[in-house]
């Protein structure tokens, strides 16, 4: 790998683009409007085209202004059409942004002989070229794109810092916000204006794919790993910066491994963000796929153990067990390891601890049977089957409520089951 000053500037510019988008993406995500980022990044086109047609130049100022107006227009029209046409907000969004995008294309075609629009530049941006376009500020020579992106991030961060609780209440409970004198609709439109501004500022450097990716993916990843908005904001920023760094390193190294030239950094950044999302999806504590599988497994183990304990208990009380009901040797050894059962002279028996556990399970079973028969109007044989499952998921709180509800003394409704002493 050959790291140059150009790489440093490219990476710094990419990081600030990613941070800007990710920060705003959180607020789109919690309003379930993640696709609004996609919509707005298309819908700004007529704003850009109009700004170009009116001013005849590609200066940033008018371009950004045109984009912001188009962004707010998208939000206002989306809400207006959803309301007036009685359609879903997503449908209305689809109508608005495709139409505005088409209008933008028409305007650009109109001005085609005067504008140099490179489609691949819009899609992927030209992060690789950004360090070459520099301006001098106070004796320092800085890439123009770096300056634009850091300024946009500073604006976004300042506004989110100042209006954090206003954004939060507006997104969570807009009606309460209105009664408290806050303006959730203005908040929303301010957010849309910021998204449009950010999208346009980042387009030029990192392209529309990365803008949309960074508006959606870091926030979605952070939500998997956190359950409070401030933590989610922090994590999403870390993930965005991480994707930018990994993306750039990946773009420099990975293609070389296979004997290709470097690939585009912004494309690789989007891939890195996607990869992080999938890692979070799998490994997130609590909500991840792996944690879920582990919970399922431990529940299944517990059910096996408890059924085996109950079987040994019944045999200990002198009941005949069918061969199928006898716990497998593997299961018996597992019980032994937990100190619930022991083998003496070739016969497996419950230890006092195992006996206590077994009684607790059987007790829960009988409580559920009685409850289902007496209070839920279930037939006795059906109640037995349901209780077989319920006995394994009975929490102490449930047991307490059951014990309060069921008539005393508690007797099993079906013949043949054993009531342990309590």
């Amino acid at each position, binding site marked *: 790998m050959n790291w140059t000053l150009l790489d440093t500037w490219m990476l710094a510019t990419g990081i600030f683009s990613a941070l800007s988008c990710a920060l705003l993406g959180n607020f789109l995500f919690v309003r379930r409007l993640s696709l609004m980022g996609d919509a707005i990044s298309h819908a700004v086109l007529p704003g850009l085209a109009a700004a170009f047609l009116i001013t005849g130049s590609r200066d940033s100022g008018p371009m950004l202004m045109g984009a912001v107006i188009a962004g707010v227009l998208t939000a206002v029209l989306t809400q207006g059409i959803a309301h007036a046409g009685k359609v879903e907000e997503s449908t209305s969004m689809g109508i608005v942004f495709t139409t505005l995008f088409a209008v933008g294309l028409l305007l650009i075609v109109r001005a085609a002989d005067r504008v140099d629009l490179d489609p691949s530049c819009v899609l992927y941006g030209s992060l690789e070229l950004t360090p070459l376009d520099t301006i001098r500020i106070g004796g320092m020579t800085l890439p123009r794109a770096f300056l634009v992106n850091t300024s946009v991030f500073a604006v976004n961060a300042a506004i989110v810092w100042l209006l954090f*609780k206003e954004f939060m209440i507006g997104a969570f*409970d807009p009606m309460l916000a209105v009664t408290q004198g806050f303006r959730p609709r203005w908040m929303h439109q301010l957010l849309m204006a910021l998204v449009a501004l950010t999208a346009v500022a980042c387009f030029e450097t990192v392209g529309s794919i990365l803008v949309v990716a960074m508006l959606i993916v870091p926030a979605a990843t952070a939500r998997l790993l956190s359950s*409070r908005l401030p933590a989610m904001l922090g994590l999403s920023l870390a993930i965005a910066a991480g994707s930018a760094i990994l993306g750039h390193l990946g773009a420099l190294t990975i293609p070389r491994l296979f004997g290709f030239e470097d690939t585009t950094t912004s494309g690789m950044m989007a891939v890195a963000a996607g990869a992080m999302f999938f890692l979070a999806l799998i490994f997130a504590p609590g909500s991840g796929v792996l944690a879920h599988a582990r919970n399922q497994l431990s529940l299944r183990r517990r059910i096996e153990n408890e059924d085996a304990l109950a079987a040994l208990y019944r045999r200990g009380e002198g009941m005949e067990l069918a061969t199928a009901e006898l716990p497998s040797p593997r299961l018996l050894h597992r019980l032994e390891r937990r100190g619930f059962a022991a083998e003496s002279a070739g016969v497996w028996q419950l230890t006092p601890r195992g006996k206590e556990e077994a009684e607790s399970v059987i007790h829960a079973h009988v409580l559920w049977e009685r409850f289902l028969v007496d209070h839920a109007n279930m037939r006795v044989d059906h109640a037995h089957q349901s209780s077989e499952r319920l006995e394994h998921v009975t929490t102490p709180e449930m047991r307490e409520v059951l014990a309060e509800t069921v008539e005393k003394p508690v007797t099993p409704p079906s013949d043949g089951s054993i009531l342990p002493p309590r």
Partner: protein
Amino acid sequence: MMLPWKMSGQPAGPEHSPYAPVSIHDVTVAYHRKPVLWDVDLDLPEGKLVGVIGPNGAGKSTLIKAILGLVPTASGEVKFYGGTLRKHRALVGYVPQRESVDWDFPVSALDVVAMGLYRRIGWFRRIRRTHYEEATKALARVGMDSLALRQISQLSGGQQQRVFLARALAQDAQIYFMDEPLVGVDAATERVIIALLRELRNAGRTVVVVHHDLQSVAEYFDHVIMLNTRVVAAGPTAEVFTQDNLLKTYGGRLTLLDEAAHAVARTGQR
């Protein structure tokens, strides 16, 4: 229309206002031109527990939203102590229907309760430790302080409703509007909520509650507003919660008005 509490001359409230806490003048609300509230004209009494009852689609929630300026009114106006809502926002607390918010939102119970303080905190200001302490106290009053840091989707329906109630308490309002706070809650939560509503009433607050369970109306409310697009009756529960008024509210005769409303809506279409 003669209203019992308009004649009786309510004693002045804690603010010593000569006006009713809320007076509703000829308010009509229409959705897509179909009237859902038709010429509602009444005053709310100070320091009472007021139930709003009526069949589905009678405009109960709409009445509250119209009072709070959450839906546009076709005509009429609402006064708070003789002044505008804008002037008296600090006096008004609102508990929306539980289903109106997204319970997967990444906030804790404490965060939600703290939202009741946002107005007092003010624009641009940050939430401080003292605000969280105040919110914790409000949670304790509904028996939920031990679950303060839990993400709200991890709470049961009854617990979520208690969080909403705690948020209203944190608002420390003079007039409360609550939209179906007893729907889908367990018996224990219902007892907690009713005790709180009475506590608020006994402290001189006015509490307006949209309610669906006719069985408990007489037990819970001092006043009732019986609504079916029109106000069928409004006044002290003992006087107006009668078989006759119930029939008028829930019975079939007002369907004539409903048909007419549909007809009105159709005339508006091109």
